[in-house]
């Protein structure tokens, strides 16, 4: 049993199971905001089209159309890969970690947060493939008995990467789907039109809600959650090892794994807040995504943001403590160099802009929370850029110092991945219940139980 430690119920308790079911299953079945959804889908499709065009140009011309070159030979591709992957992690953390901790407020957010994870990971995943230069050889990463009689090199972080990301994607999809099946059954039972009945009927796999099935389901779901939490930590730690395992000044630090994981959670919670605010206003879900939810999200955002800020402080401390001349030079370059704007941008957008969240009225204001979340997303993007470019553009050899400037195609592909994120996300919002139906009912049930548990005690107290 999940016990909520909150004194106040997170969901308004005057809602019935039936109302909640009809409201949430009704969103795909009788879609309310057709026009706005179509506009959003149209714009996202344009961006997705841009991605296709850019990818074709990239594959036919080569990675030379990007701005990367020696010495900055890792740029937008890895930068945006880390950024997207980090955003994805918050979905898993909200869903899995808070499930295990028994936080009831997670039940209104987990579905779309997990959906966000799937497509953020997908956006991240295409970047290394685009970066390959010869993407049709991506299967060389897998150990298959090749006629060349070579095997992949498992002692390299670059090889770990594909295993980590593919495992993460697979486990995320399975976790998401297992959690979705009971809701698909609810939508199947509400569907009146034949096509919806077949669609949800097939996807629900014939779920009946039997007590025995629920018991096994619960075991599997919680086990997957318990696996997903260390998986998130391992995946982003592994990503940080792509940097930290090298000897480049500014990268070669033991703070990197936790620094990357916390930054990832930070940016992801920001995107979850943004999606929560937009969805609740779009589908009028104020009874399920309440101001209390925004309040909690604001607090989490503040906490993870301060932990990320600790990373900034520790990075400087690490450098000063080491006294290494190259590390010190990189620190100076970061703060005052040509790309100083990315460093100060990260500080301003990630740290200064965050401070209003100390006030409850700010956390509970959708507009303010949305603005701060946007700032965090930009700030984290700048931070990843800073970590990458400022370390590479001036490393050990003065003769190899250079510059990096993103080209049109760098930006085009980045904008394209935003389309790659939103098109499938919007489609799933259209087709599937956007908030977990049965988990919402579970919260309502627990709240009612607690209310009935509390009231006899009060009565007894009153009598005494």
């Amino acid at each position: 049993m999940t016990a909520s430690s909150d004194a106040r119920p997170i969901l308004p308790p005057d809602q019935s199971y039936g109302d909640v079911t009809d409201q949430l299953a009704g969103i795909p079945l009788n879609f309310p905001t057709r026009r706005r959804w179509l506009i959003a889908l149209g714009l996202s499709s344009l961006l997705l089209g841009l991605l296709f065009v850019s990818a074709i140009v990239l594959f036919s011309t080569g990675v030379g159309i990007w701005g990367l070159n020696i010495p900055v030979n890792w740029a937008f591709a890895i930068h945006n890969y880390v950024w997207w992957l980090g955003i994805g992690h918050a979905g898993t953390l909200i869903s899995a970690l808070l499930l295990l901790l028994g936080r009831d407020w997670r039940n209104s957010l987990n579905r779309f947060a997990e959906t966000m994870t799937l497509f953020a990971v997908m956006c991240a995943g295409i970047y290394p493939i685009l970066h390959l230069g010869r993407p049709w050889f991506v299967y060389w990463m897998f150990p298959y008995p090749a006629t060349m009689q070579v095997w992949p090199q498992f002692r390299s972080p670059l090889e770990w990467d594909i295993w980590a990301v593919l495992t993460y994607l697979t486990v995320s999809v399975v976790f998401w789907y297992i959690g979705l099946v009971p809701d698909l059954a609810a939508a199947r039972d509400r569907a009146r039109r034949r096509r919806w009945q077949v669609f949800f009927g097939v996807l629900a796999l014939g779920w009946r809600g039997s007590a025995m099935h629920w018991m096994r389901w619960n075991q599997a779901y919680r086990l997957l959650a318990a696996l997903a939490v260390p998986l998130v930590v391992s995946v982003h730690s592994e990503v940080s090892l792509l940097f930290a395992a090298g000897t480049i000044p500014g990268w070669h630090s033991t703070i990197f794994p936790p620094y990357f994981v916390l930054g990832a959670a930070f940016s992801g919670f920001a995107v979850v807040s943004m999606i929560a605010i937009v969805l609740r206003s779009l589908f009028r879900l104020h009874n399920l995504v309440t101001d209390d939810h925004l309040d909690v999200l604001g607090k989490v955002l503040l906490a993870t943001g301060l932990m990320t800020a600790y990373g900034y402080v520790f990075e400087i401390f690490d450098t000063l403590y080491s006294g290494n001349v190259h590390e010190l030079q990189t620190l100076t370059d970061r703060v005052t160099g040509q790309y100083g704007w990315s460093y100060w941008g990260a500080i301003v957008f990630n740290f200064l802009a965050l401070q209003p969240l100390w006030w409850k009225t700010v956390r509970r204001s959708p507009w303010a929370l949305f603005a701060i979340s946007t700032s965090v997303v930009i700030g984290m993007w700048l931070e990843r850029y800073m970590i990458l470019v400022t370390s590479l553009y001036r490393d050990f050899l003065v003769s190899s110092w250079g510059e990096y400037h993103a080209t049109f195609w760098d930006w085009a592909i980045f904008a394209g991945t935003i389309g790659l994120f939103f098109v499938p996300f919007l489609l799933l919002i259209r087709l599937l219940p956007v908030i977990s139906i049965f988990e919402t009912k579970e919260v309502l049930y627990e709240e009612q139980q607690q209310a009935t548990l509390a009231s006899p005690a009060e009565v007894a107290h009153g009598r005494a």
Partner: protein
Amino acid sequence: MAGPELYGALAQFETPEALIAAAKAARQKGYRRLDAFTPFPVHQLNSILRLHDRRVLWLGLIGGCFGFFAALAMQIFTNYDYPINVGGRPLYALSAFAVVAFELTVLFAALFPAFGMLALNGLPRLNHPLFAAAAFPLASRNRFFLCVLADDARFDEKDTVFFLKGLAPVSVELVPS
């Protein structure tokens, strides 16, 4: 028994508490082939209906072990079959193998119980006798159902329905198999 082809008798209740009380009463009455259908997991039912099955968790353990050893075997073999000397570093570097070993441990520890859960539950199964019951769509909405299966030793068309009607249900119906 008139109609030999019955799946069971299905009683509909308004609240989880009513279902729990009814399930207890049915156990006391001596019914053993019971099943309950709820829109969300009601954990008290597990002990009342004597539901025990830890195979899903064991599958997780087996999957994890399989993933771990498969990953180690794969990495050791590829380095044995195609050895590359990287600055004299050890060929069988367990610390370097740890990441992929961990990932595959998690991967199979997740896939085994996920698919195992579906298989043990007999899913996917798109058609089922219960779906013919008129009230059953509410099992995914706001109603709580208790089913006495027809293969219970004490099942009798009339007696069981009579018994279920005594539990103050919203409705009782016989489900053809």
